[in-house]
């Protein structure tokens, strides 16, 4: 196929350089047939690439976390030429590494009645009926293969004395289907994927680019055909062309400034794709994790999560009375002075059957509620107790130490408090983002050739993700879904459909990227990128955090553009582009967050219902529970960029539930 030149190499005024003017159509490409057969049939129907031709196809994978590394390795094993990029100094450091709890798989090794169908059902229900049935079913199906794959790579999963794999129940699931490797499941799985990636790098099938940040995607003829990348050591901007581009760039939790994400996590790759025409789906669906260590002051740079498993044996409480709480905040009273009758174990009180084990969103919201009532127990006003005194009394300190020793140590390391003697303090923090680039059943965005996998897409978790499902989804996409589905696109478009990096479209994008960097460096104002980021985060947390309302969101839609304006006038980025410059990296990411935050608020505003992680105060039951509106909002909201300073356009993909009966979640 000949590459058509359709761009004059002048500086572009808008970013929609090459995308077609045709209307976005969201075709989810869900295969027909019974849900259990869809994936098998689909795989059969997918076009195959001739094995001899595979090495003539190039694929760019951006990101090297669980999804990116597993995809890059698997694609290379199939014979494709892969280029993989990450901003970290090694692919092994992606933030998948921080996942503690485990990975779900419907192995039914415990003989407790688990099945792919049950995992599917739980995930759809847990996602509050805002995910795509067919995708979730496929996820549950391939989950079993993931465990096999990882075990074969040498991942040291926890074992029983008989040598077989151990499981635990996690996040309120009724079956034990979570596999784990101490408190480091994420790291161990990532090291597995990293080792597979390494093997392919050593064989010359993957070209690895570390400390490289993707700054834009290049569209040719409406297809994603390359990226523009900044080398973070030398500042050099380079172009990379391929037959297809895969984004495995993670979530956008750092829009809140404070989150459990790594410092470097950012939305730039997804957001740049969005500005080139990819639809962004459900951006307002963010997950708040209830058991994080509370903020200790303005200096806080990130929040640390402690495993949810703590809620198995810890009891969450605040004083019944505001005055007592105030005395605790001032340090006049210690928690151990409060007698049991003056304590409010609010989760146990409100949800007698699930108690402290209610889902993440419910636990988080209730913690916020009691703090809003003025019953917080930390000086910042944001924190509740998680008390192990009863468990220690019941099981003995040693048993508690065996189960949670590493978490107690970590808690003491950070807060300086011994949690065996005093209750822990916890507060919810942003943890995971269910939203992401819109993708079809093949994990391809509405831009042909552009795929999104892992946390970067929106597909599997609906409005709320279950514990131990993030690792599962990342690896499912990377090992077992994308390697098949990408073949369809490549086979359809042929070997010749790879542009040269000398194509004018590349020069245009590179010019844009460079001029943007120039601008950031030339503002020479007074405020640091961090200060803008922090201010944006505060707005997002207040207005678009655990609970949202119309008024607040509308206010945010006014304040964010103001902040953005100030950013472009008063930013200070010392140094130059041609060297390692962390302020510059950060500034570029904050610039995108400043636009993206607005999109999130817009999405939260249009979704006039409460579901999963999205809680609109206007939409709650009299008891204060989330109230879904299935009649009007049973859809995926997919936003299309319409140009600078123009309102994005909302597209809707209606969700159809053939298998799962929609019910109101109840944890009473």
């Amino acid at each position: 196929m000949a590459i058509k030149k359709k761009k004059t190499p002048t500086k572009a005024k808008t970013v929609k350089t090459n995308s077609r003017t045709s209307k976005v159509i969201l075709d989810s490409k869900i295969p027909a047939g019974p849900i259990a057969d869809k994936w098998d049939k689909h795989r059969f129907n997918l076009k195959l690439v001739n094995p001899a031709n595979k090495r003539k196809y190039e694929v760019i994978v951006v990101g090297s976390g669980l999804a990116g590394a597993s995809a890059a390795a698997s694609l290379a094993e199939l014979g494709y030429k892969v280029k993989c990029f990450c901003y970290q100094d090694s692919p092994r450091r992606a933030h998948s590494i921080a996942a503690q709890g485990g990975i779900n798989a419907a192995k039914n090794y415990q003989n407790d009645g688990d099945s792919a169908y049950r995992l599917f059902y739980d995930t759809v229900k847990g996602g509050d009926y805002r995910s795509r049935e067919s995708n979730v079913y496929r996820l549950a199906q391939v989950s079993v293969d993931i465990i096999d794959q990882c075990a074969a790579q040498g991942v040291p999963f926890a074992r029983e004395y008989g040598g077989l794999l151990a499981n635990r129940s996690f996040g309120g699931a009724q079956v034990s289907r979570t596999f784990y490797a101490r408190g480091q499941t994420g790291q161990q799985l990532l090291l597995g994927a990293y080792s597979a990636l390494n093997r392919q790098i050593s064989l010359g099938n993957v070209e690895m680019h570390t400390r490289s940040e993707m700054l834009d995607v290049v569209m040719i003829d409406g297809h994603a055909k390359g990226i523009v990348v900044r080398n973070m050591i030398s500042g050099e901007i380079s172009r990379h062309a391929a037959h297809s581009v895969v984004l495995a760039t993670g979530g956008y939790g750092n829009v809140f400034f404070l989150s459990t994400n790594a410092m470097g996590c950012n939305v730039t790759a997804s957001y740049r794709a969005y500005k080139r025409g990819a639809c962004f789906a459900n951006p307002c669906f963010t997950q708040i994790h209830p058991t994080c260590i509370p903020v200790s002051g303005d200096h806080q740079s990130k929040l640390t999560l402690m495993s949810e498993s703590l809620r198995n044996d810890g009891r969450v409480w605040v004083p019944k009375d505001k005055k007592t709480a105030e005395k605790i905040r001032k340090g006049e009273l210690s928690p151990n002075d409060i007698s049991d009758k003056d304590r409010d174990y609010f989760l146990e009180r409100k949800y007698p059957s699930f108690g402290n084990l209610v889902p993440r969103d419910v636990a988080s919201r209730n913690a916020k509620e009691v703090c809003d009532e003025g019953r917080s127990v930390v000086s910042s006003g944001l924190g509740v107790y998680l008390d192990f005194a009863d468990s220690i009394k019941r099981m003995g300190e040693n048993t508690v130490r065996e189960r949670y020793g590493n978490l107690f140590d970590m808690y003491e390391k950070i807060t300086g408090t011994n949690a065996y003697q005093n209750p822990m303090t916890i507060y919810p923090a942003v943890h995971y983002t269910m939203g992401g680039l819109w993708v079809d059943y093949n994990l391809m965005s509405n831009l042909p050739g552009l795929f999104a996998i892992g946390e970067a897409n929106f597909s599997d978790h609906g409005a709320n993700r279950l514990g131990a499902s993030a690792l599962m989804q990342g690896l499912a996409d990377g090992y077992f879904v994308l390697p098949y589905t990408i073949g369809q696109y490549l086979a359809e478009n042929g070997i010749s459909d790879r542009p040269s990096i000398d194509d004018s479209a590349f020069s245009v994008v590179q010019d844009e990227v460079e001029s943007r960097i120039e601008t950031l460096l030339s503002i020479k104002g007074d405020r640091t990128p961090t200060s803008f980021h922090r201010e944006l985060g505060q707005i997002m947390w207040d207005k678009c955090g655990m609970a949202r309302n119309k008024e607040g969101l509308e206010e945010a839609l006014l304040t964010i553009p103001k902040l953005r304006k100030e950013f472009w006038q008063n930013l200070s980025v010392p140094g130059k582009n041609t060297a390692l410059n962390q302020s510059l990296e950060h500034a570029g990411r904050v610039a995108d967050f400043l636009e993206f935050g607005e999109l999130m608020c817009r999405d939260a505003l249009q979704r006039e219902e409460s579901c999963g992680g999205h809680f609109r105060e206007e939409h709650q039951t009299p008891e204060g529970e989330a109230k879904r509106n299935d009649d009007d909002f049973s859809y995926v909201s997919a936003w299309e960029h319409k140009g600078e300073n123009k309102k994005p356009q909302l597209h809707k993909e209606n969700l159809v539930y053939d298998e799962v009966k929609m019910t109101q979640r109840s944890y009473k």
Partner: protein
Amino acid sequence: MNLKLKVWRQDNAEDDGRFEYFEALDISPDMSFLEMLDVVNEGIISDGDEAIAFDSDCREGICGTCSMVINGVPHGGQKGTTACQLHMRHFNDGDTIVIEPWRATAFPVHRDLIVDRSSFDRIQRSGGFISVRTGSVPDANATPVAKENSDLAMDAAQCIGCGACVAACKNASAMLFVAAKVSHLSLMPQGQPERNRRALAMVNQMDEEGFGNCSVNGSCEAVCPKEISLDFIARMNREYGRALLKKGCS
């Protein structure tokens, strides 16, 4: 509290580098060490100067990105703690803190406190894997692993690849890192087919990268944020001897 910082500054790999002095004022004991540096950097950037470059990412002690020598000790010397989890309550008002990058020929400095640890990646690439293709694997429970072995493998696999062992070693030896990797895979039944190849290849690559040799001083173990045991070095030596006898003779 108020502190004085003596920080290594270096513009790039070719630059000679020098120490610069900074004041860290109004530091809260609840800050992490890196947050203290963030505060100092905010001041530096506001003055229009270039911030102290240092690596960090997860800031919860697991990604292994942060890498600085604090008062002569990698990660600052709190047992089992990375620099990002080190808190200022361990310092006193008026202290002078010396902050330097990892020092090793195999870890050249990129800028200030940021070093290039790609040598670790290359060691891993030389053989730190089990060659399985996606999909072509047996059921996970088809290969039982004795719990003792699996637990021991996990002890080794905890390594976060931060490089503190190399930074602490007077010989800049990477033995603890390589030993952890070799041991992890050699303890698992899945790792047996490539056991000898792996040990030989990884040690050869380690040598090629210009790391020093083990003098059994134990500094590596002392600073390892995951407290990985010197025993694994002995285990690797054993693995290597075995591999030499089996493969080296052929």
